[in-house]
């Protein structure tokens, strides 16, 4: 109910105004490397500037991954522990193709238009298309299993499935392809896409990816299909009665979320030029889950906060609490689950009216004080 109310409010406002916060965020992020460059004086591809670009690249990619998870859990009401399968699947598809297929292809069939060699572009397009398809397939796999199972039962199944995938990807039998335990390292990339040589490009690509993904997901959530998905979360039987097949809509959410997760995984494997089994493990899903919970489920903007905070925590908790910082983090997480279940954004929205009124009262208070100090006593 609350969601629908918020949505109509957004529709009434102009688009620019309703997304004001996000646009400011994007502008700041766009300017960030250049501003830091000016302040510190180090080059764009070195020192502090480079380091922080790297941190933000991880942040952007994890944000998209967490947002796609929010589609599942927050909007679809589906608790899946297999979302990392899409992330890792995307990463491995990208890594495997780039490492084992692309080099031969580039050598044997150069594609040249005029004077420019576009082989690399074609290869990247094909590889990303493959990532796209694999993500759809993984999404479909989980959607199919969700036909007969719901709720906790389904959560357990996804856990088992993703564990199985994780075990397979790190098994020694596939060592020559996947690199087993150590993962797939040294994924060859063209110079312009190489994060060590050209970090700014990767930075801008990830930022663009975040912006595009955010608006596509927002569009999806506000579309009629998105509304049915949300209604399904609230009451599946009722939706079935009025003629919507919940399975269809669940499948749509799964595939849609899986595509973004897969692309995020592929980008991540560009960023660290490798694909590791951890990317496919339940730990990765749980990380996304933590981000969504901290930010607020079913808000889409929440995961940005969640990803940012968990990034910061990973940066600073170590220095604050030493090697056992996850202990503090775990306790914090339990606290959030128990007492702030709607996360930052959700809690803010619940109390938004109170906050605004409080702010107004505060302004009134001060303006009055300036006019006539005596009135303050009366009102106070």
């Amino acid at each position, binding site marked *: 109910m609350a969601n629908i109310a918020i949505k109509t409010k957004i529709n009434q406002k102009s688009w620019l105004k309703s997304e004001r916060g996000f646009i400011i965020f994007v502008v700041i992020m766009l300017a960030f490397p250049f501003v830091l460059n000016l302040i510190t004086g180090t080059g764009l591809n070195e020192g502090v500037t480079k380091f922080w670009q790297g941190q933000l690249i991880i942040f952007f990619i994890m944000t998209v991954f967490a947002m796609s998870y929010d589609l599942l*859990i927050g909007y679809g009401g589906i608790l899946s522990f297999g979302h990392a399968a899409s992330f890792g699947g995307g990463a491995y598809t990208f890594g495997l193709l780039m490492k084992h297929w692309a080099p031969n292809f580039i050598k044997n069939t150069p594609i040249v238009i005029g004077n420019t060699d576009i082989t690399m572009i074609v290869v990247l397009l094909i590889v990303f298309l493959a990532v796209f398809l694999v993500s759809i397939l993984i999404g479909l796999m989980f959607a199919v299993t969700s036909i007969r199972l719901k709720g906790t039962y389904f959560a357990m199944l996804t856990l*088992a499935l993703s564990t*199985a995938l994780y075990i397979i990807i790190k098994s020694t*039998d596939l060592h020559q392809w996947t690199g087993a335990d150590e993962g797939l390292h040294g994924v060859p990339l063209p110079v312009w896409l190489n994060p060590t040589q050209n970090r700014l490009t990767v930075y801008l690509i990830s930022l663009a990816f975040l912006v595009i993904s955010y608006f596509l997901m927002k569009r999806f959530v506000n579309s009629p299909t998105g509304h049915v998905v949300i209604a399904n979360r609230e009451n599946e039987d009722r939706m079935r009665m009025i003629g919507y097949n919940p399975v269809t809509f669940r499948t749509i959410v799964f595939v849609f979320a899986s595509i973004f997760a897969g692309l995020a995984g592929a980008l991540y494997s560009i960023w660290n030029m490798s694909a590791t089994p951890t990317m496919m493990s339940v730990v990765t899903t749980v990380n996304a889950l933590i981000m969504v919970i901290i930010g607020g489920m079913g808000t889409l903007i929440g995961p940005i906060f969640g990803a940012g905070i968990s990034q910061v925590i990973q940066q600073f908790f170590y220095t604050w609490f030493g090697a056992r910082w996850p202990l503090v983090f*775990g*306790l914090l997480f*339990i606290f959030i689950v128990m007492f702030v*279940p709607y996360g930052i954004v959700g809690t803010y929205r619940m109390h938004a009216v109170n906050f605004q009124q409080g702010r107004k009262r505060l302004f009134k208070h001060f303006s009055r004080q300036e006019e006539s100090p005596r009135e303050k006593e009366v009102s106070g």
Partner: protein
Amino acid sequence: MNRKNKKILQTILIVVVALGIIVGLYLYAGQRAFVSTIFSGLTLGSLFFLVAAGLTLIFGLMDVLNFAHGSMFMLGAYIGWQFYTNPTFIFGIAPLALAFGTGVMFISVLKPYVVAWNLSPRMQKLLPTIAYILAAVVIVFAVLGFDILALADTAMVAMTTTTVGNPLAEISPQEPLEEFWIRPVLIMLGGLLIAFGSSKPGDKTQYAPKENLGKAILVPAILLVLTVVSVFIRESAPVSVLLMNGNIRFLLSILVSVAFGFVFGAVIEIILIRPLYARPTFIILMTLGLSYVIRELVQFLWDPLTYQMARPPLFAMPGKAASIGEWLRNGNSTIDILGVTVPTYRLFIIALGIIMFALVTLLMTKTRLGMIIRAGVQDPEMVEAMGINVKSVFTLVFALGVALATLGGIGAAPFLPVQPLMGDAYQTQGLITVVIGGMGSYVGAFVGAMILGIARAFGDYFALKLSLSPAIAEASTVIIMVIVLLTKPQGLFGKKE
């Protein structure tokens, strides 16, 4: 009638297929490999059952999926290993834990009086808050300077100690009693404050009869006595325990581990799970966080290392026994069964699994508690409406489930490396077992665990034979689960939704 026929046909089909598979495997693998694989399968199955039994009961009764179950299994192994190797840690923290428990348990005595106070609504809100803050302060003061890490290190030190007469001789002495006594006293005070706060002073709508006060005082009184005893035996008990016969010590460490699991489970249910029953998804998230915390806590106390618990003497002597009698006399590490060498400790784990299954069966079919659980699996609301306090049954079942998991942990400790992630694989397999057997069915958990264990063992056997890695066998258990789910979505013994 038709449905009945179909069911019979189905059962016959399943039995025939199962027999076919077994005979096929026997012919393929030959007797030796077959028997030894079956034994390792049953061993795994027993451990799976100990994990899955708790999971399935907890899920069936209260729809709670405990993702911290594997961590509790691991914690059981650590506690048992500590007690067996060097109980200084356990005896060192027991006074504090018992003192806290005593304080909190006095709620049953406090509540009837406190509830009847005449307080303004403002005070009703204010008093508990003050009590909680005071309790926090008092407890912080109580544990200030208490070197828990040194205490936890004792087991690690003991492993390198070679002194036979007094294994604790080289360990730095603990805090003397003259300084120590204030800690349990303060902690008990903290517990009392918490009891006071949570008994809702002045809230007359609370149901708290004064009639059975005699009964209510029993538990805190026993705890009080135990606390006092534990304070005085803190330093002497570890030595006397270590001088005991190894087998008895192992038995004791099993008991300690199980008791710990029971209390720990009850505390977790009351503090963390009870407030979340209205939001099932958040219970899953909370248990996820909990498993994280437990794992980190263990690494905090005992460093992120892998330990190997020594086998108790009954299973320790190198050499093969020809018969069970010889094994029991000499304590051989392996035994000859049908021409196959089987580690004796495996037999112990198998026996443990079967005994626990028998006990759970007895509990579920013969006792009133079992009746309540079976009824509650179907409709907890109706059970409550009949005058049974379902919430306390929930607590009890959760505690029992965790106790079973910790029992599995200590059972596995002499046989698996004791390390912070040891429970995870068992939790996953336990979840698969529960899905195969059907949520809420302990029989299903047993049958599912045995099927899974044997399948896993044969998977390992084939993987070895086809020179694949054992990971493939581990992953292939998921296939069994998928097959069961596609043919019987509610599991082999599950209730129909």
